């Protein structure tokens, strides 16, 4: 994998020349020494499939949504699944960062289970989104995905030397404030991390960003600070979120924050519209704003590459939307 990163760097000059004219192709991000850098277009990556441990992130599938912004969320999800199934190296697992469904309806959860079964991976890990917690709270979500968390919707697991922490920040809401993790969960996180050495790579999964992207729209977590305080002593922390349906990154010390695209519909950039919500774009643009993310973890190195993959064949998607 180190060789792969070297190859990526060699093509950086070429890649940067392309970034100004965003083409919708996957952009490779390398996090080197805690600083994320746009290293090149995915197609520029040489050296064959990555040799490190990989997993993929999928988010905000919103099954059940059928409005103008995307009347066919199953179709776009299947395009994303096809892209993931076509990766040269099969991901270790898929992490879904919430909003599996749009309305928390049992039929939507059932549909999700059916469509996700088309993924060629051994397992998936989930965190809930607020759209998975409607009406009966997290009952429907936990009935399907609560086993790992003993019914609490937060849990941790280890894979290939990486410690993964899955958090729930979608049920503790206070008026006029951003959502919260809650004291019980923060205390659990502190205890969970206390037993890990500072050299353990940490990946945090949560639906709503753990950094304040845009407070007027509630795009952040009100009590993230004590959670982040418990994470700062680690040499490599990667936080993966969804919720805002667009790629954003931020780095604080050794903590790199990433939000992901949705597979269902885009949302406006923070503050660029009167409100958040589904954004209707030209059919030709939709596929460029939806997609998945592949992450490559290199054991023994604090280098992590993330590859955000808009839906392949966006032109085909546009043609389908017109027909």
């Amino acid at each position, binding site marked *: 994998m180190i060789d792969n990163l070297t190859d990526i760097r060699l093509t950086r000059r070429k890649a940067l020349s392309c970034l100004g004219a965003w083409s919708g192709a996957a952009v490779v991000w390398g996090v080197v020494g805690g600083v994320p850098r746009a290293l090149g277009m995915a197609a520029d990556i040489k050296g064959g499939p990555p040799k490190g441990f990989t997993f993929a992130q999928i988010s905000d599938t919103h099954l059940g949504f059928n*409005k*103008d*912004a995307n009347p066919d969320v199953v179709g776009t999800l299947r395009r994303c699944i096809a892209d993931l199934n076509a990766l040269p190296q099969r991901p270790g697992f898929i992490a879904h960062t919430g909003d599996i469904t*749009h*309305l*928390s309806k049992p039929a939507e959860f059932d549909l999700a289970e059916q469509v996700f079964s088309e993924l060629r991976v051994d397992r998936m890990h989930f965190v809930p989104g*607020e*759209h998975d917690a*409607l*009406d009966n709270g997290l009952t429907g979500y936990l009935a399907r995905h609560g086993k790992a968390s003993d019914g609490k919707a937060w849990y941790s697991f280890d894979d290939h030397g990486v410690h993964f922490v899955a958090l729930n920040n979608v049920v503790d*809401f*206070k*008026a*006029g*404030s*951003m*959502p919260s993790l809650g004291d019980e969960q923060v205390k659990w996180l502190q205890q969970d991390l206390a037993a890990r050495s500072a050299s353990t790579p940490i990946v945090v999964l949560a639906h709503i960003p753990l950094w304040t992207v845009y407070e*007027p*729209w*509630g795009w952040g977590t009100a009590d993230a600070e004590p959670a982040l305080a418990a994470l700062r002593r680690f040499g490599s922390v990667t936080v993966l979120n969804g919720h805002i349906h667009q790629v954003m990154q931020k780095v604080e010390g050794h903590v790199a924050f990433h939000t992901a695209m949705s597979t269902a519909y885009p949302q406006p950039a923070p503050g660029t519209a*009167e*409100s*958040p*919500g*589904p954004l209707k774009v030209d059919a030709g643009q939709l596929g460029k704003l939806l997609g998945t993310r592949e992450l490559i973890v290199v054991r023994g190195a604090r280098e992590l590459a993330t590859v955000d993959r808009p839906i392949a064949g966006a032109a085909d998607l546009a043609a389908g939307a017109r027909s």
Partner: protein
Amino acid sequence: MNGAWAPLGHPLGLMFGVCAVALGLGRAYEARAASPVIVEINQFQFSPREITVDAGTVVEWLNHDQTVHNIIAPDAKLASPGMDTGDHVDFTFTKPGDYAYLCGLHPHMTGIIHVRAPGNSG
């Protein structure tokens, strides 16, 4: 419980909503017959955000956004189902008081209902 919610997004919902009001709260039914006070949801905002009504009045939230919202009013023990586009939720406020509420999915969306004894709404 200070009232009853009723999702009215489709014919079945309409039947359930009317039944819930008519069977559960006689005074509420009278208010329902008069006409509900409507709070519209547009662009992630309640409009009007603050209203004053007589006790027994039905307040109806109507969602025009392209995404789902719900209504959470802890002091009124109201936790409505999610409202998709075009759906609405009715709730009858039977006891005087000030009822702050929010959307449980988007907590920056807030509103307040001032419920006064009939004839004392000024």
